[in-house]
C-alpha cells in the first residue's frame, strides 16, 4: 500500500482496476491550507491521461506488474498469442495494446511481455529485427530523379523506405524504436 508521501514521477499504481503511471507530481499547500498532492497519470493500458488531486491520509494500491520473456506464436483476428517458453503458459494480447510492435512480429520472435496481473498490456521488442522484403520496385538504372529511397513491403505487411539497391527477397534489419531501415543482411 502506498501513501501520498510515496507519490513521485514513475510510481505505478492501480486505480479503478487499471494500472497507471504517475507522469507528473506536485506538492502544494495554499497559505494556511491543507496539503494537496496534484498528480497527472497515464493509464498503462489505453494511454488516457488523468489529473487527480489527493490529500493527506489517502492511500494507493501498487500496480502489480511483471515483465516476462515470451515467444510470439500466432495471430487470430485481432488477438496475438504469446507463450512463456519455461511454463508453456499462453497469453493473448489485443491489437490495440500492441502499438507499433505488430509491424515487426514474426512467429517465434522472443519479446518481453508486460503483464498486469494475468493481463498482457504491452510488449517490448528487441531493438533490431530482421525481416524479408516481399515487394519493392526494381531500381531503374540511371534514375536521376535524386530519390535516395523507395518504398518496400516486408513479410509482416509493414511498409517502409529503403535504399534503392534493396531487392525483393532480401533480408533487412529494421530499428524497432524508429521503424526505420538500418542495414542489409548479407548472405
Amino acid at each position, binding site marked *: 500500500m502506498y501513501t501520498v*508521501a510515496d507519490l513521485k514521477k514513475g510510481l505505478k499504481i492501480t486505480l479503478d482496476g487499471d494500472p497507471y503511471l504517475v507522469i507528473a507530481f*506536485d*506538492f*502544494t*499547500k*495554499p*497559505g*494556511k*491550507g*491543507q*496539503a*494537496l498532492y*496534484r498528480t497527472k497519470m497515464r493509464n498503462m493500458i489505453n494511454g488516457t491521461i488523468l489529473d487527480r*488531486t489527493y490529500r*493527506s*491520509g489517502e492511500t494507493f494500491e501498487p500496480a502489480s506488474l511483471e515483465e516476462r520473456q515470451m515467444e510470439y506464436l500466432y495471430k487470430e483476428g485481432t488477438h496475438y498469442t504469446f507463450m512463456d517458453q519455461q511454463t508453456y503458459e499462453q497469453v493473448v494480447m489485443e491489437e490495440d495494446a500492441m502499438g507499433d510492435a505488430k509491424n515487426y512480429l514474426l512467429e517465434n520472435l522472443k519479446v518481453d511481455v508486460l503483464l498486469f496481473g494475468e493481463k498482457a498490456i504491452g510488449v517490448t521488442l528487441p531493438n533490431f529485427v530482421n525481416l524479408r522484403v516481399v515487394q519493392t520496385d526494381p531500381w531503374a538504372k540511371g534514375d536521376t530523379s535524386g530519390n535516395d529511397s523507395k518504398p518496400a513491403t516486408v513479410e509482416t505487411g509493414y511498409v517502409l523506405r529503403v535504399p534503392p539497391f534493396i531487392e525483393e527477397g532480401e533480408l533487412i534489419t529494421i530499428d524497432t524504436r524508429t521503424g526505420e531501415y538500418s542495414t542489409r543482411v548479407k548472405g
Partner: protein
Amino acid sequence: MDSRDSNLYQRANIIRSIRDFFVSKGFLEVETPQRIPANAPEEHIEPFRSGERFMHTSPEICMKRLLCRGHGKIFQICRCWRSDERGRRHVPEFTMLEWYRTHSDYRDLMVDCEELLAWVAEACQTAGKMPDKNRLDGWFEKAQRITVREAFARFAATDMETAVRNGSFDELMVTAVEPALPQGAPVILMDYPAAVAALARLKPDDPAVAERFELYAGGLELANGFSELNDPVEQRLRFEAANRTRLELGSAPLPLPEPFLRELAAMPPSAGIALGVDRLVMLCTAAERIDDVLAFTPEEL
C-alpha cells in the same frame, strides 16, 4: 560556478537588501527563541518536536509578545520548521521574514510589501548578476488588489462561501484561482473567509471575511499577512477550534501558548506578515525549484 552556487550570492544579496529596507524604515531587528513550549495551533501545520518543546513553525507568538511589551515596528529573518512539507516550493526547514507594526492594519502591510519588492528588485538589478534584468520590472508597479470572493467569482466554478462550506476552498484555490492570477505586477489576494484566518481580525463591515491577504508574485505565493486579532477570549476559542479540527483529521491536538494568551489584551491594534525568503530568492533567480536556492536540500544531508 553552476547556477546553484551563483544563486547563493543572489540569496546573500537579497537578505542584505531586506535588512537595509527594514532598518531604513525604522524597524528593529529581533531574534526570538526558535525552540518554544507552544506554537499557535493550526489545522494544517505540523510542528517538529524537540524534547519537551517544539521548533517554532513561525516566530509569530514571540514577536507579538514583543508588541505587547511596547515595541512598535519589529522584523526578524529566521529559520522555521514545518514537518511533512516537501515539494517544488517547500522544504521542512526554510527561511522566513516576519514583520509587525502596531497601530496599523493589513493595508499598511500591503504598502510595505510593494515597497519591499521594489527595493529588492532594485538591489538585484544593480548587483549586475541577473541574466534577464527586465524580468522584475513589474515589482516597481503597484500590486493589483483582488478580493478572494471576487477571485472565486471570476476564476472558479464555485463561489467562495460554497467552497468553504463543501471543503473545496483549498483545492479550488490551487487548481483554479492561483493559475489564473495575473502575472507581471504583484497580486494581493485579500479578505479571506473567516474560517481560514485563525489569527486575523474580522473585517468590521463584512464579518464573513477576515482582514487577511496573500501576496503573489510571478504566480508564486510569497507572503501571508493580516490585521492581528487582539481579543484573548476570541483567540483562545479559535485555537481550541483548530485543535478540534486537528482531532477530526487524525492529528494530535497541540498545547496552547498560554503566556501569549495572557498578554494579548495588552497588544495595540497591530498588523503582521510572514514572507518566504527562499521563494523570494526563487523569483529573483528564476529558479524552478526551491532546491536551486538552498546551500543543501534535506535529501543531501
